[in-house]
């Protein structure tokens, strides 16, 4: 490609003099090269039309979370769920998967890098949503695709496979894929960071780019989970993976467990909005996690 760049940036009159091609021919070649390799500008009005028809808002399966997110997950975006281990990130992901495949009849791709995904957990979630055993089983089988990836290369490979199948519009097995869940992204990126090499960061940014492009081009809702760190002992919680990664997701959710005195054996899960393109940040809602199931907290159950 560097040859293309050199050609395009060179003075064509100069080149015409040095070789036997005519100036006109060179201009034509340049035009073709640019048409092939450069990006094409789209008009705002056209883009808006397209987006109106292709963007969907998907429910997470947890009503209070949906409200926090201004109705739910927007396709075309990457959302990050951050929290300490055990704060419920995988649970929320499973809830999203269950809601998507059962309620919305969408297909889901789940990339698991922690080994936290088990079919039985998802089955439990589906059981909570519907009584129909047949529907549960068929949902699981046909609509949820799980891939276990344990390093960055496997993850990039899985995403490439996804891209290929979506581009060819092989609808039979993936169907209308709308949700991609990655639990967790920090597990595959952590080994790359640290030290002075920039290759790790470059790989991370490559993954970031791929996720965003997939979300945009194929109107998917991409959800990733991440760990949290603090700047100093008592500083505020912030997402792991550093500054460069922090620019990547458009929405960020923080999950925390708070000790609740009046509930027996009670820890309450709280979700707060840390970053959003459309809502003010800092709002918090409560989630209820118990029995491997995430429900909205209803007043009737408090003692």
């Amino acid at each position: 490609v560097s040859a293309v760049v050199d050609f395009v940036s060179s003075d064509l009159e100069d080149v015409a003099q040095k070789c036997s091609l005519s100036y006109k021919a060179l201009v034509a070649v340049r035009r073709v090269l640019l048409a092939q390799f450069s990006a094409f500008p789209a008009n705002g009005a056209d883009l808006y039309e397209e987006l109106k028809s292709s963007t969907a808002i998907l429910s997470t399966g947890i009503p209070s979370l949906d409200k926090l997110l201004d109705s739910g997950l927007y396709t075309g975006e990457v959302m990050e769920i951050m929290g300490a281990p055990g704060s419920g990130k995988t649970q929320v992901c499973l809830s999203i998967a269950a809601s998507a495949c059962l309620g919305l009849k969408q297909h889901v791709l789940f990339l698991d890098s922690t080994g936290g995904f088990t079919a039985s957990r998802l089955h439990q979630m589906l059981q909570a949503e519907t009584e129909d055993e047949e529907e549960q089983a068929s949902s699981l089988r046909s609509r949820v695709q799980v891939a276990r990836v344990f390093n960055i290369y496997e993850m990039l490979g899985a995403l490439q496979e996804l891209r290929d199948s979506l581009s060819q519009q092989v609808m039979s097995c993936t169907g209308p894929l709308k949700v991609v869940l990655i639990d967790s992204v920090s597990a595959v990126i952590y080994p790359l960071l640290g030290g002075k090499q920039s290759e790790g960061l470059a790989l991370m940014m490559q993954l970031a780019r791929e996720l965003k492009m997939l979300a945009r081009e194929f109107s998917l809702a991409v959800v990733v989970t991440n760990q949290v760190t603090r700047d100093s002992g008592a500083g505020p919680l912030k997402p792991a993976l550093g500054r460069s990664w922090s620019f990547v997701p458009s929405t960020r959710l923080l999950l925390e467990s708070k000790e609740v005195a009046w509930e027996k054996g009670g820890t309450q899960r709280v979700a707060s909005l840390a970053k959003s393109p459309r809502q003010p940040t800092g709002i918090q809602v409560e989630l209820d996690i118990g029995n491997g199931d995430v429900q909205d907290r209803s007043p009737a159950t408090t003692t």
Partner: protein
Amino acid sequence: KLLARLEGRTSLKDLEPYLFAEEGFPVHGDVIEFHGPEGAGKTEMLYHLVARCILPKSGGGLEVGVMFIDTDYHFDMLRLVTILEHRLAQSTEEMIKQCLGRLFLVNCSSSTQLLLTLYSLENMFCTHPSLCLLVLDSISAFYWIDRSNGGESLNLQEMNLKKCAEILEKLLREYHLTLFATTQTIMQKSTNSAEHSFSPKPLHETDADYRPYLCKSWQQMVTHRIFFSKQSNSGNSKAFSVISCDIKKKHVVKRSFTIAECGVQF
């Protein structure tokens, strides 16, 4: 044809007086860099400026065209439409589409593609004299990937960006454009005390976070640098501040703004 090009460009002087230390900015040929950490309001500010440009004169806008180059797939069309809807007295679909018709959006996935795209955009600027504003969000998106691809040689690493800077300069000059570009604060500021004593000129507090990392050609092109940061003191999580520096005249001004449903408000 040359004259038509020059005459057709409207001035952007009244674009957003709060952003600049002095009156009468920006003028064409200016390069304004928005710098700040994530969540500091840079993208919202860009939406605010884009809205100002594409709204019709009757709606308080400048009615000029904008070319928006998005390198991190960050642009949120629905958010822009919400802002437009809030600013138009009567926002019909027709009017929104008319405004959006003045906006052009390009996505680039690598610095090489960015470079080639800039070459092909020349044609666009030639045929659309209403295009006055060029936005590049963000110009630092390929930093790590370029660094890794360039291997050991700093020259190779910076090559693409250097060429982009050159062609940007040419476009700004020939087509009388103004460029707004965002860069992200991705470097840790050094806590080494020795470096403090070497720091060139003590600019204002928030500037300590700024470590230039893009190539020299870009640094030298910038005429105004505006630092964005979140105000962490007040309980209000929606307050942000900007520090605007005019590089040549060394004027600095600090302003604050909030982000509401209708966009940026000073």
